[in-house]
């Protein structure tokens, strides 16, 4: 894992493709492992999970801060896939049932706290796919921030850009997303499908 990060860091684009599946499965494994905690009412936020994956997968002595940022970038993407996959399942399961108040649901077979109700996760995912069509960097920033729980400083390092740029990217992308997603408010009922 560390090797891949170092290679990726030094400009080997193939490394990212190798990195992603590993991180994805590690996130799933960690989330499943935390099932044991979940039974005791203990769940993990995506942020915590990504950090745990990092602490577990990466040799801290060989990886410098840029490696770390790149890992988090990759992990955010993997996390997005994990959350979207499970939001889909969750959403499917919910159809036809009564619509509960959408607080912070827990994905049932993972000790993973969803950053948002499944419907919202799916909408964000879809919107980000569109956004990436004309502004890949902003989509990436949202992915890292929303799915990976990264801070702006971490995102700046991962994208090799400045902190101010990331701030601006986020502000713009956030506004666009809110507009694109429509007037969904926390207490609104879920769109029925």
């Amino acid at each position: 894992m560390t090797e891949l990060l170092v290679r990726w860091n030094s400009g080997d684009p193939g490394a990212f493709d190798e990195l992603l599946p590993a991180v994805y499965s590690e996130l799933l494994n960690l989330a499943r492992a935390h099932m044991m905690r979940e039974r005791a009412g203990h769940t993990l936020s995506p942020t915590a999970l990504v950090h745990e994956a990092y602490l577990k997968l990466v040799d801290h002595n060989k990886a410098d801060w840029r490696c770390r940022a790149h890992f988090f970038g990759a992990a955010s993407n993997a996390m997005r896939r994990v959350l979207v996959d499970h939001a889909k399942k969750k959403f499917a399961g919910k159809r036809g049932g009564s619509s509960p108040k959408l607080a912070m649901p827990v994905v049932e077979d993972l000790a993973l706290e969803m950053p948002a109700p499944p419907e919202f996760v799916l909408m964000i995912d879809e919107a980000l796919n569109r956004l990436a069509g004309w502004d890949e960097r902003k989509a990436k920033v949202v992915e890292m921030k929303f799915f990976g729980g990264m801070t702006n400083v971490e995102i700046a390092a991962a994208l090799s850009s400045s902190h101010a740029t990331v701030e601006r990217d986020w502000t713009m992308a956030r506004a666009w997303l809110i507009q694109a997603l429509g007037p969904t408010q926390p207490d609104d009922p879920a769109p029925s499908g």
Partner: protein
Amino acid sequence: MDRDRWKKLETVFEAALPLAEEARRLYLEQTAAGDPDLLASVLGLLSAHEAGNEYLDRQSPPPPSAAGPYRIESLIGRGGMGTVYLASRADDRFERKVAVKFLAPGLGGVDVASRFLREHRILAKLEHPNIARLLDAGATVDGVPFLVMEYVEGVRLDQWRREGRPTLTERLTLFRKLCDAVAFAHRALVVHRDIKPANVLVTPDGEPKLVDFGIAKLLDADGGELTGPSRAAFTLAYASPEQTEGHPVSTTTDVYALGVILYELLAGRHPVDRDPAQPAAFLHALANGDPVKPSVHERLPEDLDAIALKALSREPALRYQSADELARDVARFLDNRPVSARPPSAFYRTLKFVQRHRAASAFALAAVLSLAAGAFAAFWQAGQARREARIAEETNRFVLEMLSAASPYSGGGRDVTVAASLDSAVRRAGFELKDAPEVHAAVLGAAGNAYLGLGLHEEAEKTLEMALGIAREFFGAGSPQAARHLLARAAARQGKGDLEGAERDSREALTAFERGGDPQDEARALNSLGSTILLRGDVGGSERAHREALSRLSAAGLLESVLATATLNDLAVALGTAGRAAEAIPFHRQAYETIRRLRPPLHPDIANGASPLAALLADHTDRFDEAAQLFREAISIRRQALGNSHPDLMWSLYNYAFFLVDRKDYARAGELVTEVLAQRGGTLAAVHPLVAASLFLRGRIALEQGRAAQAIVPLEEALALRRQTLKPDHWLIATTLSWLGQAYGASGRRREGESLLRQGHKQLAASLGPDHPRARQALQRLEQFLAH
């Protein structure tokens, strides 16, 4: 949307955003005058920006910049329990690095506050060099609770093992400290419950530090179980079976986690050969399979297998019952002592004994040999070493193994296990040493002496007979080598009461030595002869034999030798037996003073010399101070050289206690008796004569102090034990009866008392004669009773 359009939108949005309402309106009118779509889009974005969204906006609040007086510097790590930052105390004149832990946002739910309170309270109690200390606790201005902990600069335990490549001893020493820290916490009624490598940091000095008592809970005040299965988190890979099954946890839960850590330290892998990320498979393996021995993965001594697997027992009751107990076993292993995790077998005990002394000095080796079976063993070693080093060395190995098997720890009576191990050693020697008859004979000789030490005279004679046969064939019938076995057989025959045979053997050996041995051999043969004919009643002959031994040693310039001191003691015993105590004392004293010159301070031989002299002085002179000093010296030496539980020490304590009772120092005597009786069932078998004797003395002390009611139980116990182990007409039983009678009488049970007093006196008179002091004292007790 096309990119150019998006760029344009972005530019306008960003320009408008910081502007106040009026300025924004003016700016937008100017910029988007001819583009209503753009204007609509920007206005939409601006209003969306204002509106916000709960989910998008709850992401990643920036880490607090300060926690109370602590300035946050950088992230150390995040885990299930919280986020930990490196921080320093901002308002301090000298900078102090600390670790500040915030709970991860969205974690914990309603019990965050109480969990923190609990952690604070518990951690404050835990001041230990191997536990990261809690320094402070508080909340940020935003109300986020945090803990401030000692910052530990170090690597995780698993990383330390992998990269630091510590030796086995280093790993175990560190592990022991870890156990001590956990035991310390347990004594403060705190169970960690989440011990894992991530919670153990190793500092650059190699010191382990246990961090994160996040899920520790207070034990119930009664030290019993915890408050049921808890809601708190644990880590699956280090969770005990009872934790994963939701059963109550206790201190043995931590013992289990320590077991996992020990296993990983030893084998470099987890005991359960399943990925904890696949919980179902992991739990199944945890619940159904025993871990394979760590030595399967890495070359390790069996003891460590036993320790690790005991700590990992699925059944909490089968584990070490405390971290202390686990620490002690690791310490025992490091000291080459038998570990409690191994099933006790004589051979195993022997093995540890040999390992322990492998690196020891010649002094220690000699001490061990003389301890185990008396001077005879040293004689073997010395005799063989002069002739051929190889024989000596190989014999030594066997001798050590077997003599230690027949160690004094076996207590009184026939120790079946030890005897069985000797039997098998003899068989093994016959098998392995067929091609080395000289070693075979020596080994059989040593085994014979070990049987002697156990009082198994038949076996000793038989084994020595074989040794003798081999030695005669290999070295010649009249050879000194064969003669040594003759001497040993003499001791065996003496022991089983064949005094005639013993005398014959001794004389034959003497003749052989006079032809081809040396003065020391001759002296030994003379001593053997002297002690045998003493038993046959020939006191004069015995005295002459020992004096002859002494003069031959003297002629060879060997008066300053251990053998000479043994001879002096034998001579003193002969004189004492003849009722010439006054003459005996100078010889005992000379022996004692010689051995003090020959042996380094604290050598057990010095205690062996001090003991009989002390007894003789106490019984036959009024030099009580000197006697007391010698008793105390023997006790002190044996305590330091042999440990606090060795039977030899128990004998010294008892003898001194007996002396003190005569001196009417009952309080001190009582303490000594209590110390002896603490070994009951331990190094002293329940039927060991010292147990009955000490109980008897305890009863006597109570009687002397006027606590007759408290004398009854120990005296009854002593009586029962003596009836169990002695012939029914033994005088010790009679004495016990007499004293018990007095105790009954003094506590109002006059009829029983009188009956026992009469019975005791009658039996004493019958076995020792009516004029024997003990019989007379018994009569005195009876008369005193009748007079009241």
